[in-house]
């Protein structure tokens, strides 16, 4: 008996050590990125590399704000926020129709989700030519419209799942009580799937916030997002490392905070609703 107990303890210890090692491996690149942003140029380019800065200093961030490069984070916020709001509204009412009235049947639902699987590069090329013609390149309208369209299938698909989870009886009694169809949606459906709405909105926001290829093609200086701004520091002189890391941290930190609140919905959110988590 004692022997068995000892073996279990060894097993648990081994698993704990493995878990620690793996977590360190997966967090190390993030640590390295964050840490470079606090280093001075001398520390970044010291050989052999230093694994931590001499002291915490925010000079690299100050440069981004002084040069005005940090505006890219604001562009990201407007573009991701705007497209998320529109996609959430249009997508949720569409999802309600799909879930409750089976509008268009399986075919429409499958067509919508297949839209998400089209490779961005094949879409962005003709869209770019269209936008040049419309004068929409490097405008909020153009980018927000494309992000909205690209995230709509996700919103519709996810919200359809969340709405199907709500019992129908509540909506029926609201109708009997004399609510109009719109009032049912506003006063019953939206409040009932509040958590799902919130989770879906966060993920939609993250997708748009992190997007790179569309932004690379469709933005220049006016609405350039932080992902594009990061690549502007590539390749040139290597003293741009501080800017790469500081800009990346500015873009990454908000996402980490948002996801910290989303732990419960993470699995469902990233598996397109296939796993309830």
């Amino acid at each position, binding site marked *: 008996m004692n022997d068995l107990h000892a073996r279990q303890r060894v097993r648990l210890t081994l698993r704990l050590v493995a878990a620690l090692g793996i977590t360190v491996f997966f967090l190390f690149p993030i640590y390295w990125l964050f840490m470079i942003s606090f280093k001075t140029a001398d520390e*970044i380019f010291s050989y052999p590399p230093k694994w931590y800065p001499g002291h915490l200093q925010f000079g690299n961030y100050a440069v981004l704000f002084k040069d005005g490069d940090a505006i890219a984070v604001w562009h990201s916020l407007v573009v991701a926020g705007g497209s998320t709001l529109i996609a959430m509204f249009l997508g949720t009412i569409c999802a309600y129709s799909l879930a409750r009235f089976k509008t268009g049947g399986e075919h429409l639902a499958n067509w919508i989700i297949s839209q998400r699987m089209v490779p961005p590069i094949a879409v962005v090329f003709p869209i770019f030519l269209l936008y040049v013609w419309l004068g929409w390149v490097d405008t909020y309208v153009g980018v927000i419209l494309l992000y909205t369209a690209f995230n709509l299938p996700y919103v519709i698909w996810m919200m359809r799942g969340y709405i199907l989870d709500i019992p129908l009886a509540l909506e029926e009694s609201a109708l009997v009580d004399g609510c109009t169809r719109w009032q049912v949606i506003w006063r019953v459906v939206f409040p009932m799937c509040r958590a799902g709405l919130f989770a879906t909105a966060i993920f939609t926001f993250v997708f748009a916030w992190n997007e790179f290829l569309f932004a690379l093609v469709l933005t220049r200086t006016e609405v350039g997002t932080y992902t594009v701004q990061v690549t502007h520091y590539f390749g040139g002189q290597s003293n741009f490392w501080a800017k790469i890391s500081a800009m990346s941290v500015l873009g990454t930190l908000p996402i980490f905070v948002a996801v910290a609140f989303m732990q419960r919905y993470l699995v469902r959110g990233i598996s397109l609703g296939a*796993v309830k988590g």
Partner: protein
Amino acid sequence: MAQATAPRQADFTDRNFKYFLVGPSIFVLLLIGIFPLVYLLVVSFQGITMTEVDTSFVGVRNFAHLFRDRRLWEALLHTVIFTAIALPIELVLGLALAQLFLDRLPGRQIFIALLVLPVVVSPIVSGATWSLMFDNRFGPINQVIGWVTGSPRTLLWTINPALVYPAIIVAEVWQWTPFMFLLLLAALANVDKSQLEASAIDGAGYWRTFFKIVLPAIWPVMAVAILIRGLDLFRLFDIVWALTKGGPGTMTETISVFTYVKGFQQFETSYTAAVALLIIVLLSVVVFAALKRVRLAR
């Protein structure tokens, strides 16, 4: 079941209401979904390049060129190679991690919360991060290799033809293994415990139980994970762009990088349209076949 009960007071406005709700979304999707397709079809039969705006009909010239373009097919091959190597590694590693974290473990929730972080980092940022990590002089990777081997190394991870594939795959696997891990962990947690116990009582070993009971039980989730990651890898762009831009030469050029270079750096407009159509057709076949097999939701 919903249809039978919901539209109880089905008057005329009620019947149109459901179409009114889907209308705006469908409109936006068609605008961004169908317009490009039509436009690509038109442009791909013309002869537009950077130097000439030839909108006359050139027949299937662009499509014929597709088949003679070595670089295109190599890009497709690179994409397949990345997918064929990275996807199994992510799957197996993710499954192993899920097994490790399945049972009770001190600090389990914290570990999981931390392991998730790579998934939500923007792919272009993780590419940038890894290019800092892989730097031949100031990156920690060569430093650690130097410690292990005993002599300083200055391996050129993003330039040396023998090392670029491992470098990109490491970055890719780092970012997306946690994705596999999360999904498979959820799937493993839902496996019926009584079946596992019954199998243990019957004297089945670990691997036998795994292949006969666990694997069939988690397969639906695994299929979804493979589908999502497979499609993502097919469009692989950001990490390659950050690490190598498709180089050295065109060695690591994926189909997305190739199309970007053709369309936005070499301005071969009509030919790029033909390439984009080829991508859409290829992928539609895969998606269509996959959606028939994989259930994304009930």
